[in-house]
């Protein structure tokens, strides 16, 4: 590239500044560089009639539910996942997860980032219920090279009755915590596949598929189906790599020889 006139720099700086002004604010999570696999749990954004206190209460319950869920995920010592609460961090949307940011998060062994937006809605009887839209950013999935691959950021709606804390808590355990557990285990599998630890990759990709099938009660949403397909394709690729065969050739010539995913479920 040849040097360009300084005027061009001025114009480009103005253009860049105008684009940057459109970006959402994204606070950083200070503990993100700590060692080991991590799930980042951001704050909940309250909207409408939801108060900041309600959002804080919900976040606290989520942290507890997610912590329990991760402890029960059946991960080995090397795959242990820490849940980090990132104070005052609420990503805007998918655009906050730029490739550069995802690469850093991936390098810091972040598997998943979860945040939620809480709002209120009326049920059929006219009673006010609170809804929380959970967003999951699967960090290792950004390495996925195909258009068939799942989106980086999922949104899953859940209804939580804040007027009945017990029911709300139960809902958290039954829905979002089960999803988080499944996504985390799949992300662990994807991560081990990238690090060429094939045995662990196979174990956790299988286990994660089973957990996600359970969490969605056999009726996965479109993004969940894309993730299940992706996990299965990756598992088959890992199997072929482990066998030392030509991945590309084997995928075309001998698809039927790939073992079914039964382990870890």
């Amino acid at each position: 590239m040849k040097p360009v006139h300084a005027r061009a720099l001025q114009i480009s700086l103005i253009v860049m500044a105008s684009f940057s002004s459109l970006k959402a604010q994204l606070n950083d999570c200070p503990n993100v560089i700590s060692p080991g696999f991590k799930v980042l749990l951001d704050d909940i954004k309250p909207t409408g009639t939801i108060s900041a206190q309600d959002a804080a209460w919900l976040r606290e319950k989520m942290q507890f539910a997610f912590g329990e869920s991760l402890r029960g995920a059946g991960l080995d010592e090397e795959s242990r996942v820490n849940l980090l609460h990132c104070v005052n961090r609420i990503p805007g949307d998918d655009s906050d997860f730029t490739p550069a940011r995802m690469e850093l998060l991936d390098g810091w062994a972040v598997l998943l980032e979860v945040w939620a937006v809480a709002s209120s809605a009326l049920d059929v009887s006219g009673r006010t219920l609170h809804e929380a839209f959970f967003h999951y950013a699967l960090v290792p999935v950004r390495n996925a090279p195909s258009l068939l691959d799942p989106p980086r950021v999922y949104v899953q709606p859940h209804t939580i009755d804040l007027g009945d804390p017990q029911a709300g808590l139960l809902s958290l355990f039954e829905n979002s915590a089960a999803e988080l557990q499944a996504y985390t285990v799949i992300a662990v599998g994807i991560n081990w596949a990238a690090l060429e630890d094939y045995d662990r990759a196979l174990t956790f990709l299988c286990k994660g598929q089973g957990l996600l099938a359970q969490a969605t009660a056999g009726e996965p949403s479109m993004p969940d189906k894309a993730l299940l397909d992706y996990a299965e394709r990756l598992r088959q690729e890992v199997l072929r790599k482990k066998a030392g065969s030509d991945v590309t050739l084997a995928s075309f010539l001998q698809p039927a020889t790939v073992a079914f995913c039964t382990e870890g479920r």
Partner: protein
Amino acid sequence: MDENGSKRRLAWDIFQIVVPVAQAILLALLTLFTSDLSERVSHALQERQLDLSNIEAMKDLILKVQSKQAATDEEEAEAAAVALAAFGARAVPPLINVIQSGNETGNTSRVQAAEKGLRAIGWVDQNQVCPQMARIIENRSALFSWGTHLSAIRLLGDLECADALPGLVKYRDKIASATLEQFAKLINASPAPSLNCLQQIKTKLSQTIAILQRTEEPAS
């Protein structure tokens, strides 16, 4: 008048004509030299004054991009880093420092902002950024964190720094089968590198080498 006398007279006449012309030329040269010298001195003094005023202006922007607000406000960090980029080559070392400190504290906003600043400088004149980025990846005293290496590799590709290709290939070959312990010797221990970091560096090296090899191919 004999023949010798007329020759002497002719030589004297020529001498009388040549000397004033030579004097004038010498005087002109001397004037030119002294004026050039004084211009150079004056230019150097002005540049020095400009440098000093730049340092003051840059100091404010550096403080801004390193501020607590910038750590939590991506927009603020980017605005300061891009403004810093307007200082050209002088802004390169502080922006590298911002990347390094952002990686040490897990601050992706600062890292991204500083990368944007460096990209803006390099887009105007890649020679102001490419050699500095190449020096980062060639450094073997573990001066820089893995994230700074990652930024440097990314910028070398983005700015099409063709001269850096041999260094990138050498780096790729060095870490191709490196253990985590071997990799850790090349980079700063803060933050401690993991296998994930090594994997990210390997992936980014492959991507950047592919970009630079493509740019070296003649257009068909």
